């Protein structure tokens, strides 16, 4: 099994979840209110009141093949709106 970590602006959450659902992932977890900084040195703060929001951190535990299926769509979204995606190994307990 793999673990996929996605970090991107909260405002793109719906689009990313749509991509996950289309690939039929077994599940996912979303943590909002993440802040941070990307390669452009722009700091994302939790300015929720402005409607800009902060980042979302999405974790998906799933098989490699599902990741291969989603790769292009996710890359497309992240390259346009910003954000990062990393894969690591994970074993079910």
């Amino acid at each position, binding site marked *: 099994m793999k673990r996929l970590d996605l970090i991107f602006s909260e405002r793109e959450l719906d689009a990313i979840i749509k991509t996950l659902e289309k690939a039929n992932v077994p599940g996912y977890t979303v943590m909002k209110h993440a802040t941070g900084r990307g390669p452009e040195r*722009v700091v994302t703060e939790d300015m929720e009141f402005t*409607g800009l929001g902060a980042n979302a951190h999405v974790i998906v535990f799933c098989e490699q093949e599902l990741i291969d299926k989603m790769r292009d769509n996710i890359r497309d979204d992240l390259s346009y709106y910003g954000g990062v995606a990393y894969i690591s190994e994970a074993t079910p307990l």
Partner: protein
Amino acid sequence: MEINPILQNVLAPPVLFFLIGAISVLFKSDLEIPAPLPKLFSLYLLLAIGFKGGIEIQKSGFTDQVLPTLSAAILMSLVIPLIGFLILRYKFDVFNSAAIAAAYGSISAVTFISAESFLESQKIAFDGFMVGALALMESPAIIVGLLLVKFAAPKNRPKSRKMHLSAILHESLLNGSVYLLLSSLIVGFLTASSNPSGIAKMEPFTGQLFYGAECFFLLDMGIVAAQRLPRLKNAGSFLIGFAIFMPLFNAFIGVFVARILSLGPGNALLFVVLCASASYLAVPAAMRMTVPEAKSSYYISTTLGLTFPFNIVLGIPIYMSLVNTIIPLSPL
């Protein structure tokens, strides 16, 4: 211009709390108003402004001045982004220029209520229907900004990202803060028409609490603005100049339009403040989604880090003396 009104403006609790917030950042205090508490106050203020505005509009009815003023307000929110865009294009690409210009065409509700508080403390009358102008100026500026992107930069965007008119209207009208303000205005209007006892029951919440909540929110705005200010350094002096010059320029146009409309000094100040203020709620949220090519730090830092504090602290009294100078002049 006398120094007195500026000092009087600065010594009002909302402005003092704004300064306290800003100074806390300067002195590296760890004072913090954690999310989502500022959102609570921002939602509350929009709801209360809309609700009270709706009541006022229902009460005053559509007098002679209402329609011309509202039309002029919409016109200003269409024209200002175009002017801003032309200026910004000297230095920035289409995306950034359109996004920043849209912010300056739109309005800041908190600047508006600060101007109302200023007028109340100066005992200058103004009309409730001006909240209608506030509500009507948010969306057109967003639409103009997105149309500028659509028509000025069609080649630079990937196909899949083409903007459709329906998306533009959605962003401009259904943006959370625009929607809450407009719909609260309708609730206020309907309540005043059909359920006047409801007004009295809402009054402690939307009325009496308002000033204190405004102070609390401005405390946070002071913190946020002061955190944003240093980011402007990266943006360059052109943008810093723009963030001060543009509101003054817009105020100047605004005061002449107010004169043509024969607005009284109170309404004239509010009209000028709407022109001069820039949006840091609705527009940035809309631009973040639809024009990700623009750097959010540009449109957020200018509006929130410089234009907003400038208007709150110095702008309002300056605009007042502008109104007092220009409006009484012999007819054009």
